[in-house]
């Protein structure tokens, strides 16, 4: 038993206050960074060193180490997926999000038929992994809708993931049976002081319920959980440290679950929100390298929020999963004129173009890395034996 951080093994995940995390990073030296770069495994203290300003001169070495670890664990491959936006109705007021309730945008929820048509288009374009996304409006898009849609789609896709509002454990269990394999739920910010300042109304104001969501997902038997922090709300170094601690805690509790991490940076959107803290590409790269070195086995997602130049450059340095050809407005694949998007895309290339770029880097763009046969549950019972 290794105590990676004193409260990691405790009953529920406790986010240390950011005032406590600050000194943890501030106390790290260049010697700690060098230690982290040659160790086979690093603990939270050395992870903090890699996130610290002391690590900045070592960025190329971090990139090299992150690349080695990624190749060793995942090989020379990048897995591809596409988001499918189902609805942009939302009962939350979140300062940074285009779907925020007070924004005046074209609101729409796709019918099951429309959603299926969008999915068919993605399948025709060559996508095997899709991520169903919606705002939080259970009255318009409930769990039943997701379950019905998953049942309609799951024989056509290698895997179906969701990124919707936090649900209950039985809801997740129901969706798992319907054919959904993974759930993404980002804390947005782990900073308890900033969280209420950007979540101004709606159920998303409940920090704790959101924080406990990955544990509910895991208990319900889902294969994979995506966690993440929205960069631009609080200090990215502390955000990264809290994210890594959350990941380590989840790993210790739920050893049967696979994890991925995303690092969305705030993009321009309706509402005109300006990031509260600045996170540049060098900072984002440092965070990605540090997290890869901290957890060599975690999947790292880099979405089309980032520009093509950055995404191409990062191939082979840590990320394992890219979206491509994305549209963030519901119905946007069938109708390119569709407005009401969540945020502006940074990489506008098609799937084929992204695949070419991945190949040019000596990596294999993998379109299928799962199979619906895994989701054909014999008895329909979710195993709750191993929590």
């Amino acid at each position, binding site marked *: 038993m290794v105590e990676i951080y004193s409260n990691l093994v405790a009953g529920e995940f406790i986010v240390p206050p950011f005032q406590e995390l600050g000194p943890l990073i501030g106390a790290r030296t260049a010697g700690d960074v060098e*230690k982290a770069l040659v*160790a086979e495994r690093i603990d939270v203290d050395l992870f903090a060193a890699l996130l610290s300003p002391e690590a900045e001169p070592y960025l190329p070495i971090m990139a090299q180490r992150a690349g080695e670890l990624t190749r060793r664990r995942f090989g020379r491959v990048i897995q591809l997926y596409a988001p499918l936006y189902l609805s942009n109705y939302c009962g939350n007021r979140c300062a940074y999000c285009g779907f925020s309730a007070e924004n005046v945008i074209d609101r729409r929820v796709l019918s099951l038929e429309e959603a299926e048509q969008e999915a068919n288009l993605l399948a025709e374009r060559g996508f095997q992994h899709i991520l169903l996304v919606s705002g939080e409006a259970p009255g318009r898009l409930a769990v039943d809708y997701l379950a019905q849609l998953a049942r309609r789609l799951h024989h056509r896709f290698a895997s179906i993931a969701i990124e919707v509002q936090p649900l209950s454990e039985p809801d997740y269990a129901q969706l798992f049976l319907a054919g959904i394999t993974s759930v993404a739920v980002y804390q947005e910010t782990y900073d308890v002081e900033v969280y209420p300042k950007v979540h101004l109304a709606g159920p998303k104001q409940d920090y704790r319920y959101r924080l406990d969501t990955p544990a509910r997902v895991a208990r319900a038997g889902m294969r994979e959980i995506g966690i993440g922090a929205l960069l631009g709300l609080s200090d990215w170094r502390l955000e990264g440290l809290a994210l890594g601690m959350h990941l380590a805690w989840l790993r210790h509790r739920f050893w049967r679950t696979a994890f991925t991490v995303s690092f969305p940076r705030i993009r321009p959107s309706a509402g005109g929100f300006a990031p509260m803290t600045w996170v540049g590409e060098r900072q984002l790269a440092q965070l990605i390298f540090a997290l890869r070195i901290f957890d060599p086995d975690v999947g790292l997602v880099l979405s089309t929020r980032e520009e093509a130049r*950055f995404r191409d450059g990062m191939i082979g340095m840590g990320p394992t999963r890219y979206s491509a050809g994305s549209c963030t407005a519901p119905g946007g694949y069938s109708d390119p004129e569709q407005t009401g998007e969540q945020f502006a895309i940074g990489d506008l290339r098609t799937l084929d173009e992204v695949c070419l770029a991945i190949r040019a880097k000596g990596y294999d763009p993998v379109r299928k890395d799962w199979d619906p046969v895994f989701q054909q549950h014999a008895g329909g019972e979710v195993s709750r034996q191993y929590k």
Partner: protein
Amino acid sequence: MLSIADRTFRSRLLVGTGKFSSSAMMVAAIEASASEIVTVALRRIDLEDPGDDIMSMLSRDRYLFLPNTSGARDADEAVRLARMARASGGGEWLKLEVTPDPRTLLPDPVETLKATEILAAEGFKVMPYMNADPILALRLQDVGAVAVMPLGAPIGTNLGMITRFQIEIIIEQARVPVIVDAGLGAPSHAAEAMEIGADAVLVNTAIAVAGDPVRMARAFAMAVEAGRDAFESGLGRKQIEAVASSPTTGLDFLK
């Protein structure tokens, strides 16, 4: 401090009571080991007899008695032994051993998991002896084991930490203490187990059959402390290469 379930211990060395040349030698060696947890084979003792040679010579105030099910071939036998021991005042602590092969005495993973689940549900504090299999360690932890006891090498072989890499994974993943049991033939083996982060080690044969068991017990005690200190002081372990001074990785694409 070593914490197992609700108890804490200063010593991270657990010792056995078998194979000594005499009860007096056993007591002297255990004292020299500074151990606070002693394991004793249920088949060797009579819990209901206050004059039992092992039980009467070691104070229960000073030592936690950890009865073991040595000899059990399957879960049924182990469970029966454990229940019998508790009914006779043996307490709820239990070192679970299920070893169907009398030649190697290797633990049976399937029966061990079964017995752990049953006994943990009955309130026993089960510490299963197991092969160094990381998934089995997680499964045992999931069904309620309060510690796991992977073997460094087959019992009695004195081979040391031949399962080191597996045990490292177990240590990294476990939420319960990891106690390396069996195969540790020399103090350096015990130190190695402690250096990689094991919470404790259990040694019996190497002490009991030494020319001078008392000095050997002390040697193991020092090795366990040395290994733990090294682990806690942040051993510069497994350095895979020096930090490259002029990496070739291009980051020119970053704005």
